């Protein structure tokens, strides 16, 4: 028995590629057969259509779904709103996260750094749906925000069920995704780089602009992949906390599948964020964001 086991170990030792293949085959096959095949199915079915009378899918290739998307100003507005709010949310999170990451990496003591780290990590893993829901309660006309501002004598903002609410909630739920890679990138900057810059006569601001910021940028971009992509592909927040003009691409897809049962059209509209993210990921890769993830 033991001899046989030793022989097997020896075999793998002499032929490491056999072991590598044995390890890689199951995950790669699973991904190819399910995930990549699913992406192909998405792409292919976006060229099909639905019989308006029987609601059955017709396997006839045509560009009808894409033409509908292109011609309709309503869908164009929805696509632009989705991409626009995703960009603004990403910018907001970068602005909120950078000073925090800087404080954690370069100023905070070990204890307070560990405390902030866990304080950022826990909301990330607590239920997404619950965090959206609680903001719906906070921003409601009878919610905490209006109540507090009225108490201190300020006018109530009444931003519940609006694009403001959608923006604020997205910025809130995805913020930890930005903080962690930004902190990681800032923490990896060697102190000697900063010292060298100061020794060469650069002011604090110049050191920040010419040394720290370029080295931290891959972290910001790594974070932005998540904040941008997650906003781009969401329908829960606009549905629960948005108003009449808060429809996202995701909402149209959600309704096409859940209500009107038009899967080909939903697939075509879902291809839009896929294309946007494809371009975004290529740029991010160029800028070294993948090493910072």
């Amino acid at each position, binding site marked *: 028995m033991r001899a046989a086991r030793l022989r097997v170990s020896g075999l793998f030792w002499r032929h490491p590629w056999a072991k590598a293949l044995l390890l890689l085959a199951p995950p790669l096959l699973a991904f190819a057969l399910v995930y990549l095949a699913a992406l192909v*199915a998405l792409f292919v079915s976006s060229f099909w259509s639905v019989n308006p009378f029987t609601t059955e899918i017709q396997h006839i290739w045509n560009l009808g779904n894409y033409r509908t998307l292109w011609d309709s100003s309503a869908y164009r507005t929805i696509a632009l709103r989705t991409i626009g709010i995703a960009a603004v949310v990403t910018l907001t999170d970068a602005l909120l996260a950078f000073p925090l990451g800087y404080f954690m990496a370069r100023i905070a003591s070990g204890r307070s750094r560990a405390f902030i780290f866990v304080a950022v990590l826990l909301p990330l893993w607590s239920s997404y749906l619950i965090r959206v829901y609680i903001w719906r309660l906070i921003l409601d006309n009878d919610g905490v925000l209006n109540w507090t501002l009225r108490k201190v004598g300020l006018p109530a903002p009444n931003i519940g069920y609006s694009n403001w609410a959608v923006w604020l909630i997205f910025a809130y739920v995805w913020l930890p995704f930005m903080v962690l890679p930004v902190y990681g990138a800032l923490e990896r900057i060697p102190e000697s780089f900063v010292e060298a810059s100061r020794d060469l006569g650069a002011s604090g601001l110049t050191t920040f602009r010419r040394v720290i910021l370029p080295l931290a940028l891959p972290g910001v971009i790594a974070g932005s992949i998540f904040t941008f992509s997650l906003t781009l592909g969401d329908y829960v927040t606009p549905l629960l906390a948005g108003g009449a003009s808060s429809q996202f691409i995701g909402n149209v897809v959600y309704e096409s599948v859940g209500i009107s049962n038009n899967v080909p059209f939903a697939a075509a509209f879902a291809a839009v964020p896929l294309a946007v993210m494809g371009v975004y990921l290529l740029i991010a890769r160029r800028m070294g964001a993948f090493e910072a993830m």
Partner: protein
Amino acid sequence: MEQRSTRIALATWSALVVLFLWIPLALIMIYAFNKSNVQSWPIAGFTTHWFHVAWSSTDVRSALWLSVRVALVATATAILLGSAAAFAVARFAFFGREAVSFLLVLPIALPGIVTGMALNSFFIAGHITVSMWTIVIGHATFCVVIVYNNVLARLRRSSASLLEASQDLGADGLQTFRFVVWPVLSTALVAGGLLAFALSFDEVVVTFFTAGAQNTLPLLIFGYIRLGQQLPVVNAIAFAMILLTVIPVVLAQRLMRDTGVLRRGATAAVVTK
């Protein structure tokens, strides 16, 4: 070193951001005890009644049970596939190694509706009817990368020469795994597994597209909130879910700290270099 005023400004900013993250979570804890059906602030009075209502609801129970089963199977799948891929990437140099990481991260890097819609079209094209297993397939695809990242990070920091030493001393593959690999790896696997479980248990965006008429706990809550029904029950579940996610994350956090074995391994690696 930064000026004193800069340091104070950054500390204040950081404190405000952490408060921004935590005040809503604190508020939902209060709402769970709201006596009234109406969710306005301040809450009408204190009661624990809604916890009983939530716990005795058959809808909530069956949704919870489905969520737990899905999360367990998805986590097990993710552990098997994720650690196999991590081993291959950490221990072998081969063509397209970068592409493996990229492929595995895609399901969470791409927008949720893309992954959801892709799986939906896939199931329809393949004439696969929705069941618990279609939900599991969806969850497993984006849980793999969580385990993969945790295990890969651990393997990269441990030295491969430990394996060679073990084999030089006459251990076979099984013994090497039992006495050398497992002690280094076990905590990373548990940590990755806990995080994968938490992710699966909470997922709603992709799940809608793979669940059909079934209700996982998040899908049930989503329906309640959307229709404005059973909000006190939602509050009570929210309270429980926040507490329940805190436990695995804190545990995972502790487990990912370096173990004694690792630290010695890392020192050895530095010395031999």
